[in-house]
């Protein structure tokens, strides 16, 4: 049985083999994720979008993790906070904003689901729902199919630490371990499930501590460090592709925003949230890259301007995209109705 490594920090020695270009690319994706997320919050506050759910504070974990995957063959089964993961997979700001506005051109659901319920066969993102942790089982089934077809593909699925309390988490890990399936359970532990702090969600310090009980390795990693997250994930991917079965990777992150646009966040003090923001993964990765001469203020200014323009254009496009035709309400109940 593979060992459980429950440690707060996996060293990101030698950039985990990432080239300077790749490090910069990670930063770029983190920045785009942040800027798009900020825009969505603005749109929600302005009353233009009825719902928003933010990933601010979790970008490093998301982009670091996604970087370890091969999007030509792996499958993603993300959760609602995984904006960064889905942007990495190829979803565009326009597509994300089409979903925010519930427009029929939204590729995830044609405006049917709430925003942040990602899905796209083209991008190998499996359609997800709101009930938490259900996708973990789907990932196990996806990995099972890949395994018996002798495909090299890995199923990546994620959820918050709170969602690991659901029975489906247990059933998924057990099933995956028995069949040594190529699936990675990526837990984004932001220490809160809406108002419930992680200490009252579970009586162990790490979600990763649960892995051993299933016979699979559990790794806890500093999710504010994209390279450390990448390194842990790369090992997990290698294990999965090599036929050595599933891994649970837990990224310790922080949630900078309220749970969602509907949450008052009164269960945390403003000081607590401010303290979290002191360790912004975006800022600190920028500092790291800058200190190493891989990034400078000019590049930052240029890139921000470029992304702002891109997001402005996307926003304009998505907001003015046509609304759904009411007659489409009955489409896609069954395959026979309209498709196939």
């Amino acid at each position, binding site marked *: 049985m593979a060992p459980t490594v429950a440690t707060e920090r996996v060293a990101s020695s030698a950039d985990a083999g990432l080239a300077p270009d790749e490090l910069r690319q990670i930063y770029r994706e983190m920045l785009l994720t942040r800027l798009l997320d900020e825009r969505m919050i603005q749109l929600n506050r302005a009353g233009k979008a*009825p*719902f928003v759910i933010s990933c601010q504070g979790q970008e490093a974990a998301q982009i670091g993790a996604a970087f370890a995957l091969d999007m030509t063959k792996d499958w993603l089964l993300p959760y609602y906070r995984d904006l960064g993961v889905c942007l990495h997979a190829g979803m565009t700001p326009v597509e994300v904003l089409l979903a925010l506005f*519930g*427009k*029929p051109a939204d590729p995830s*659901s*044609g*405006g*049917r*689901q*709430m*925003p942040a*319920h990602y899905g796209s066969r083209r991008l190998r993102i499996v359609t997800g*729902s*709101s*009930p*938490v942790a259900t996708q973990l089982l789907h990932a196990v089934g996806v990995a099972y199919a890949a395994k018996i077809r002798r495909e090299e593909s890995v199923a990546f699925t994620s959820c918050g630490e*709170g*969602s690991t*309390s*659901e*029975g*489906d988490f247990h059933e998924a890990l057990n099933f995956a371990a028995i069949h040594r399936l190529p699936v990675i359970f990526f837990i984004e532990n932001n220490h809160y*499930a*809406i*108002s*419930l702090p992680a200490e*009252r*969600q*579970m009586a162990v310090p790490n979600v990763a501590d649960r892995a051993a009980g299933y016979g699979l390795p559990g790794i806890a990693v500093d999710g504010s460090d994209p390279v450390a997250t990448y390194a842990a994930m790369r090992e997990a991917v290698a294990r999965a592709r090599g036929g050595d079965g599933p891994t649970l990777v837990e990224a310790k992150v922080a949630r900078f925003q309220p749970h969602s646009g*509907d*949450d008052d966040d*009164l*269960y945390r003090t403003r000081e607590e949230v401010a303290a979290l923001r002191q360790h912004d993964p975006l800022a600190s990765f920028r500092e790291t890259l800058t200190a190493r001469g891989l990034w400078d203020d000019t590049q930052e200014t240029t890139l921000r301007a470029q992304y702002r323009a891109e997001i402005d254009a996307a926003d304009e496009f998505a907001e003015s995209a046509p*609304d*759904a*035709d*009411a*007659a*489409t*309400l*009955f489409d896609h*109940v069954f395959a026979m109705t309209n498709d196939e």
Partner: protein
Amino acid sequence: MPVKTLVEAVHDALHEEMARDERVVVLGEDVGFKGGVFKASVGLLDTFGADRVLDTPLAESGIVGTAIGMALNDLRPVAEIQFADFIHPAMDQIMNEAAKIRYRSNGDFGCPLVVRAPFGGGIHGALYHSQSVEALFAHIPGLKVVIPGTPYDAKGLLKSAIRDPDPVIFFEHKRMYRLFRQEVPDGDYTVPIGTVRVAREGRDLTAIAYGLMLHYTLDAAETVAREGIEVEVLDLRTLVPLDKATILASVEKTSKALIVHEDTHTGGFGAELAATIAEDAFEYLDGPIRRLAGPDVPAMPFSTALEDAFMLNPAKIAQAMRDLAKY
């Protein structure tokens, strides 16, 4: 008399019952420190303490399963499921356990449990924050199913539910939580489970509704009244046990029945109402029993246009009333 919203009425019922009976405990996701995502339990933690107001882990089967254990050991748990859409993981505990405990033990054990959940749409909640799931529970003998239509009834019915010796599933339409205020007395009163309320008298047809649809139906009745059609509107309030007598008496008077619900059509609770009327008031019927319900699509979409297309509204209901009156 103070005027209150529906969610305030729910809150007051919880607060008063906890003060009245120390066996009453409240549990669920975010019900304690946050006071519930709709604030139905705000302040209870401060007043009654952490032993009796329990922020649970994120696990619905666990919430209901532990609540059943509490009920079996002489507490009176009120479990909140954050949205009715998330009650499914608890269906085994509700349907196979809570509903069957008295029967399977031949009366040796009872299960005095309330499961509360906000339901219904029209709030951009999309597929998983808009569902109506009452028909599933109404089919399970051993459960009572209650849906208040007004703040007054919400308080009185929830108190009855908490005092009931058997499991009660209590659905609150979330769009109604703050939609309007009504006079709600401070202090103790109950509304009995199992009685239909005649919300409006009329002679031309009987319309039966509950939850948000009650109000749309009353609006529609006002509209068609101006056209000379007098609709008797029944506020169902309790799906199980069903107050057949009041329903049948009304249909016997009006000879026509329109059933309105937000839940989808096929196998919705309207089917049971229609079937009951078709069987027991057949001789009095002067027209087909009409069901006006949500469309048979998997769930309510997010997009405003699609959500509107899914939801009934007073205009659609008024049209159905006119059509049926004309028959």
